[in-house]
Structure formats: structure tokens, C-alpha cells
């Protein structure tokens, strides 16, 4: 409503202009100085397009996945409380990824997902499927606007496409400031619809991988998954220097959760692949439940300490696949001279295994309903350490460069027979280099 337009910020600058007058002091003052007013004001430049760009290089050990990911974001303030933003992400992946099969003391032959070719994994080598190469393109748009006094609404849409996966989502959030703007309550809803079109079709659950030329047990058509996310959050200013955030989120997904390229090895009593007379390695395609419900609690505390900033957060997640995880993240931003900073970062993550996680299957045992040997569903710890350096140029452009090291240490599953000579879940690590530029 025009009559109640917010004049407070412009008034603040108007009074600042009025009250900064060195000509005034003439009494027995010791020195002439203007008052120190550190207020942040809306200036005209806030209403221009703002651009942020980032570039990520990601490289896993042992020639696993390499990724190159440029992101570009444009945002514009439309009014004091209204803004829009657009984001484009391109994610280019090459390399190999663990297939879920176990290493063996014999050479094993696997059929590629398309069913048109095969590849061999040497004796005592951890099986990676190196046939994937993918480029993902994602677009996001957000519009944030006031709904009422102190109530802000944001609506957004996202679409992400790669050759075997399409995801579209919409979200709406509402946030309300009160208590003199010291408290913000937040509620949001996101709905995502994914379409999966695996190369060569989605394998029938727990079906055996067949040699090239033979008929592969694949489903026709595409697979779907819907995900609903609900988020409730609160941000509270504690004092002049600190604030905290508490979020609860609920996520429910329904549909195709399998990784169509992941398999499980079927082992005999000796701990080697069970020979069923087919030349191709005896592996079955995984099967996961078609529903998953997750709950997370996230807490974050941020404090300004004499120019530096400490940012610490913790997340607890639990789901009905029996995965529990804890994440602790700590960043400390040391302010350096002339608008630059250096920020060490440590992150610790630990998770329990999904109830249907199996490093392998046994020929002698009945087939379970659900099984997956995906290393991401196993029990493991992961540590990230990183260092970021950022600086602002005289023309108000910000650069940040970060180098991070990520190391995952899985708990090695129980082994028997000749399998004891193999590592089922090797440690692995990745190095990330990120460059951000805002202008």
C-alpha cells in the first residue's frame, strides 16, 4: 500500500546527511568528528542486475568421477522486498563409478547398460563401470515478494535434465518476521517429479545380468519418482553479534528409487562368484523399496567475533530405510586486511547402512525382497577439510577460491573364503576446486 511505503531506510540516510556536519561543533569539544553510523542502506545499485558465477572442478581418486560444473546466477531486486533470480547449472561428468560388484581373484566380464557391449575387470580389481559420461543442465527460477507486512513469499521452479534423468520441481515458501524482526518463521513446500529413462531400459528387479546378444530382462518405458518436501524453520537473533537457525524437514518420495546401473554379486560357498554356466559375471540388478520417508533436524549458529565469523551447524537425519546420519560443519572466517578473508572449513559426516544394504548375495540363500550394494547405502564416515580465500576488488566484485578435500571411509563388511583377500568398500577421496565470482 503506497500510503504505508517504508521510508525508514531512506529516512535513515536523510538523517545521516543532516547530522554529519563538521561545521557544527564549536564548543569545548576535543576533536571534530562525525558520528559513526554503520547502517546498511538500500542504494540505487541494489536495484540493478547482480550476477554470480561459480566453477567447480571435482576429481575423485583412482580415476573415478571427474566433474566440471559451471553455475551462473542472475538476480535482481525489483523493489525493497521483491526480487527475482535465475540460475543455470551445467554439470559435466566423466569417469567411472563402483558398480556394486565385488572384486574377485578372477577376471570378470560385465555387460554395459545398453546391452550392446561388455567390459572386463581384471583379477583383484575393484569393479568400476566406466561407461558413463553425462551432462546435466539445470535451470532454476525464483520470485520473492511481500505477501503482507513482514510476510514474504517465495515461489520457485526448477528443471534438470540429463540423458537418462529428468527432474522438475516447484516450491513455495512463506516466511514471517516478527518480534521486531528478530525472529523469522519459515514454512515451505516443494514437489518434485522425476522421470528416469535408463540406458537400455530399467532392469527388472534382482534379474541376472545377461551376456551381449542375449535378451536382457529390462522393463519397457520410463520410470517415475515423486518427492514431496516440507520444511519448517525458525531464525532467531540472539544478540547484536549472533543468531541461530533451526529447521525441521520432512521428505517423502514415492516411485522408482533404484539405481538402474548398480548390481550385487552372487557368491558361492568359497567366497567367489557362483558359476551358473553363463560367461558374464553372476550379478543381479538391485532393488530398493519404492518409498522413502526422511526426517531431518538442522541447527545452525553464526557469530561475529571481532571481525571474524564462526558458522557451525549440525544435522541429524533419519529415514525409514534405517539410515541415520549426523553431520557437523564448522567454518571460521578470519577477516584479513583490505576486504579479504581466509576461511578454514571442516565437515564430518557419518551414516548407518540401509537395512537392505548387502555387499553381496549368497547363492545358498533365498533372494531378499530388497537389496542394494551401492556404497552410498553402506555404513561409513566422511571428512571434508577445506580452505577458502575471498577478496573484494575496488569495483565491488567479489572473488572466492576454495580448495576442499573429501575422504570417505566405509566400514568394511564381513567377508569369508577367498573374498577375504579383497577390499569390498575401499576408502576413496575427492579433491574439489571452486571459484566464485560476483559482480
Amino acid at each position, binding site marked *: 500500500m503506497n500510503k504505508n511505503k517504508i521510508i525508514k531506510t531512506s529516512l535513515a540516510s536523510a538523517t545521516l546527511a543532516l547530522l554529519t556536519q563538521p561545521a557544527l561543533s564549536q564548543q569545548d569539544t576535543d576533536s571534530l568528528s562525525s558520528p559513526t553510523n554503520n*547502517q546498511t542502506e538500500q542504494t540505487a545499485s541494489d536495484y540493478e542486475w547482480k550476477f554470480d*558465477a*561459480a566453477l*567447480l572442478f*571435482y576429481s575423485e581418486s583412482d580415476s573415478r568421477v571427474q566433474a566440471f560444473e559451471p553455475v551462473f*546466477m542472475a538476480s535482481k531486486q525489483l523493489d525493497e522486498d521483491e526480487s527475482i533470480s535465475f540460475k543455470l547449472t551445467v*554439470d559435466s*561428468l566423466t569417469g567411472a*563409478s563402483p558398480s556394486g560388484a565385488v572384486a574377485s581373484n578372477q577376471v570378470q566380464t560385465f555387460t554395459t547398460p545398453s546391452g550392446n557391449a561388455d567390459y572386463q575387470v581384471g583379477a583383484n580389481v575393484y569393479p568400476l563401470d566406466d561407461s*558413463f559420461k*553425462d551432462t*546435466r543442465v*539445470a535451470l532454476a527460477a525464483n520470485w520473492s515478494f511481500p505477501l503482507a507486512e513482514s510476510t514474504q513469499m517465495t515461489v520457485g521452479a526448477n528443471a*534438470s535434465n540429463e540423458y*537418462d*534423468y529428468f*527432474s522438475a520441481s516447484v516450491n513455495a515458501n512463506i516466511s514471517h518476521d516478527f*518480534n*521486531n*524482526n*528478530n525472529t523469522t518463521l519459515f514454512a*515451505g513446500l*516443494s514437489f*518434485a517429479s*522425476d522421470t528416469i529413462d535408463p540406458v537400455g531400459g530399467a532392469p527388472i528387479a534382482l534379474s541376472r545380468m545377461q551376456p551381449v546378444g542375449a535378451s536382457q530382462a529390462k522393463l519397457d518405458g520410463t520410470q517415475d519418482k515423486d*518427492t514431496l*518436501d516440507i*520444511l519448517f524453520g525458525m531464525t*532467531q*537473533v*540472539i544478540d*547484536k553479534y549472533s*543468531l541461530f*537457525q533451526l*529447521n525441521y*524437514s520432512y*521428505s517423502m*518420495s514415492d516411485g522408482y528409487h533404484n*539405481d538402474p546401473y548398480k548390481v550385487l554379486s552372487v557368491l558361492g560357498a568359497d567366497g567367489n562368484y557362483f558359476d551358473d554356466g553363463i560367461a558374464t559375471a553372476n550379478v543381479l540388478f538391485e532393488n530398493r523399496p519404492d518409498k522413502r520417508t526422511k526426517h*531431518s*533436524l*538442522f541447527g545452525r549458529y*553464526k557469530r*561475529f567475533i571481532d571481525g571474524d*565469523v564462526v558458522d557451525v*551447524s549440525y544435522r541429524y537425519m533419519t*529415514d525409514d530405510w534405517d*539410515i541415520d*546420519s549426523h*553431520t557437523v560443519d564448522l567454518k571460521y572466517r578470519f577477516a584479513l586486511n583490505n576486504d579479504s*578473508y581466509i576461511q578454514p572449513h571442516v565437515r564430518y559426516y557419518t*551414516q548407518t547402512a540401509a537395512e537392505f544394504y548387502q555387499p553381496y548375495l549368497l547363492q545358498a540363500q533365498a533372494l531378499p525382497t530388497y537389496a542394494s550394494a551401492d556404497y*552410498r*547405502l553402506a555404513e561409513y564416515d*566422511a571428512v571434508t577439510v577445506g580452505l577458502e580465500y575471498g577478496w573484494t576488488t575496488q569495483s565491488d566484485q567479489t572473488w*572466492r577460491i576454495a580448495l576442499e578435500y*573429501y575422504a570417505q571411509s566405509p566400514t568394511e563388511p564381513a567377508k569369508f573364503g577367498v573374498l577375504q583377500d579383497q577390499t569390498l568398500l575401499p576408502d576413496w577421496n575427492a579433491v*574439489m576446486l*571452486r571459484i*566464485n565470482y560476483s559482480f
Partner: protein
Amino acid sequence: MQKKRLLLLAILISTLGGCATMGVQPWEKDVLAKPEMALNEQPLTDALDDHIYFSKEASSGGKSYAGGGCGCN
């Protein structure tokens, strides 16, 4: 223009005020208003990190939506 007359009396109360609530006055927010104190200071970095961990770990979201999208590789 109206002229104001004395309306207010500045008085001291010897007892402590019961002002124990959290939060600060708007003009005491100079520090919290600094960009580095914003909770979404680096949206692109957060998004890149979230995507990496989404792809490599079984947990996602918390800070924002866990969302859909590819969980492969």
C-alpha cells in the same frame, strides 16, 4: 506544524527491568546486516556442495529442500 510540549519524563527505575528476551533493536543490527553474517551468504557454494553430497551420501537437505534430481554416480 504541531508544536510539542513536554510529554516525556526520563526517569530511572532502581529495579532491574525484566527485559530478558532475545533480539536487538533495528539500529543495533549493523553487525548482523553484514553480508558475511547472512545465512544465505553464498547460495551458489551451498548449491554446489549440496549437489555433491546429495550424489555421494544418503542424506540430503536440512538446510533447504532435499529435493529430487538425479542421485546417480
